[in-house]
């Protein structure tokens, strides 16, 4: 009996090590003074300095952030509507199609999404003259499209665990439908919407394949820049960039985890 416990523990430890060792290695070597990335040449912050001074990295980062914020916000709104619709409305015309369209992006290989959207934009430009040129806007549109699928799943999942009689109670007490929606429903799905926004933001920030297809001259996103640099192997400034991202994301996730943990505790015990 005890043997089983240790076997499980060993696999778990191996699994976690597997997940984290590459990240730790990148962080470690970002401080490497040597240009030959994995030959240790002493501790140095030069790559961080190079990162900080790099025009192209900054402009790519800012572009990516802009696109991420806009696409995340719109994706959250649209995705929440779909999540609400599928949960609240019974059967309606086109329900099956909507369900299909909102589930497919979750597993669709990015390369197909990328090519198909590029063709769409070209055809639209051919027929209507819009979009005149591809770039930030087309990337944003693409990101909204696949991100809303994730938001919809998260919101729907939260809704299905929710007690609908709360809304009926509110209406019974005199609340009009729109008021009830904003006073009761929205606060209850707010955590799901926030999670959806964060997920969309991350997916947008990280997207390489789709952006590569639907982008245009002058619009290089951060992942596109990184990819062009690393195609040929490991580069030290990318290590520094990666470390920065890893640290930022870790702080974000851990903070979010702590907030959620405290919320759970307060909910359980009635006090923090």
């Amino acid at each position: 009996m005890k043997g089983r416990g240790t076997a499980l523990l060993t696999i778990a430890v191996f699994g976690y090590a597997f997940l984290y060792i590459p990240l730790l290695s990148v962080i470690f070597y970002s401080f490497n003074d040597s240009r030959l990335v994995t030959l240790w040449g002493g501790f140095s912050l030069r790559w961080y300095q190079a990162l900080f001074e790099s025009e192209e990295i900054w402009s790519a980062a800012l572009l990516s952030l802009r696109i991420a914020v806009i696409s995340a916000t719109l994706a959250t709104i649209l995705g929440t509507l779909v999540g609400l619709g599928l949960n609240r409305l019974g059967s309606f015309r086109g329900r099956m199609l909507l369900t299909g369209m909102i589930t497919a992006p979750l597993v669709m290989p990015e390369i197909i999404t990328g090519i198909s959207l590029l063709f769409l934009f070209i055809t639209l430009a051919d027929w209507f003259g819009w979009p005149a040129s591809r770039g930030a806007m087309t990337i944003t549109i693409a990101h909204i499209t696949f991100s809303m699928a994730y938001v919809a799943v998260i919101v729907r999942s939260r809704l299905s665990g929710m007690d609908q009689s709360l809304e009926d109670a509110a209406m019974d007490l005199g609340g009009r439908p729109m008021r009830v929606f904003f006073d009761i429903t929205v606060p209850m799905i707010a955590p799901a919407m926030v999670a959806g926004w964060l997920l969309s933001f991350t997916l947008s920030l990280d997207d390489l394949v789709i952006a590569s297809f639907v982008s245009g001259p002058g619009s290089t996103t951060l992942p596109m820049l990184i990819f062009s640099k690393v195609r040929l192997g490991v580069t030290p400034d990318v290590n520094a960039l990666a470390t920065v991202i890893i640290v930022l994301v870790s702080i974000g996730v851990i903070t979010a985890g702590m907030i959620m943990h405290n919320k759970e505790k307060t909910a359980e015990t009635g006090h923090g």
Partner: protein
Amino acid sequence: MSSKATMGGDGRRRWLRRALLAPYLWLLLFFLAPFGIILKISFADPVVAIPPFTALLDWSVSGLAIIQGTFDNYVFLFEDNFYVTIYLSSIKIAAVATVLCLLLGYPMAYFIARQRSALRNLLLLAVILPFWISFLLRVYAWIGLLNNHGVINNALMALGIIDQPLPLIYNDFAVYIGLVYSYLPFMILPLYANLERLDLDLHDAAADLGARRWQVFVDVTLPMSIPGIIAGCLLVFIPASGEFIIPALLGGSDTLMIGRILWDEFFINRDWPVASAVSVVLLLILVLPMIWFQRLESRQMESAT
């Protein structure tokens, strides 16, 4: 009183129905329509023009619309074994990676589900954290590890275990590692969600009736975790089949994955009709698993209400 509630409910529903038009139309335009276009282009001829393919509809001299298309592209795909081999190779690699993910992910999910609540959340967070870090950067991290003068080879050589660096990168092996590494959280999360919901009484009941620990697992836990297993496998297999980044960064020239071929066909050969045909065929291959996944999703949603 009750009529007021239903009226309110109906009012809400009407509003929602109308509001739903926005995402619906969006998806129709930006998700569905593109597939129609890919299909159309797959029947076109490549042309040195912008766009580099012939139009589907053309106006003939007499003013009638002619549909000109060709199956050439599809024929080309299946003519020599090249593409067929690549499709099969992609599926094989994706399938093997899925199984590896399952073998590592299931014990991890099981381990996490068994812990006390506080530790559980922490462990789960630790699984999710890498997922939020850029996919690209995580794959990149492995380059540094697997390189000829990367961390692993350096360590092994320093320890004297080998004197020549092992070819750990730019081959199928590295691709498998990359796939398992990147998709592991996608396997663990649905597995965990399923295992966490299992009724512990069932385990006690089985033990009470004479089942030893491993029998409880085989008789109760495993059969009941099948929906989670299927969800996890589909969530890994389907996108992995069309994966581009991992074979591009970690694979060798003989690593045949359709995602990479597609990219090359598109950006390098500039043969858009063939690229379209390749995409269509890939979609056809994946359509059944995608439908399976979608039904699993909706069944899960319905049963939870």
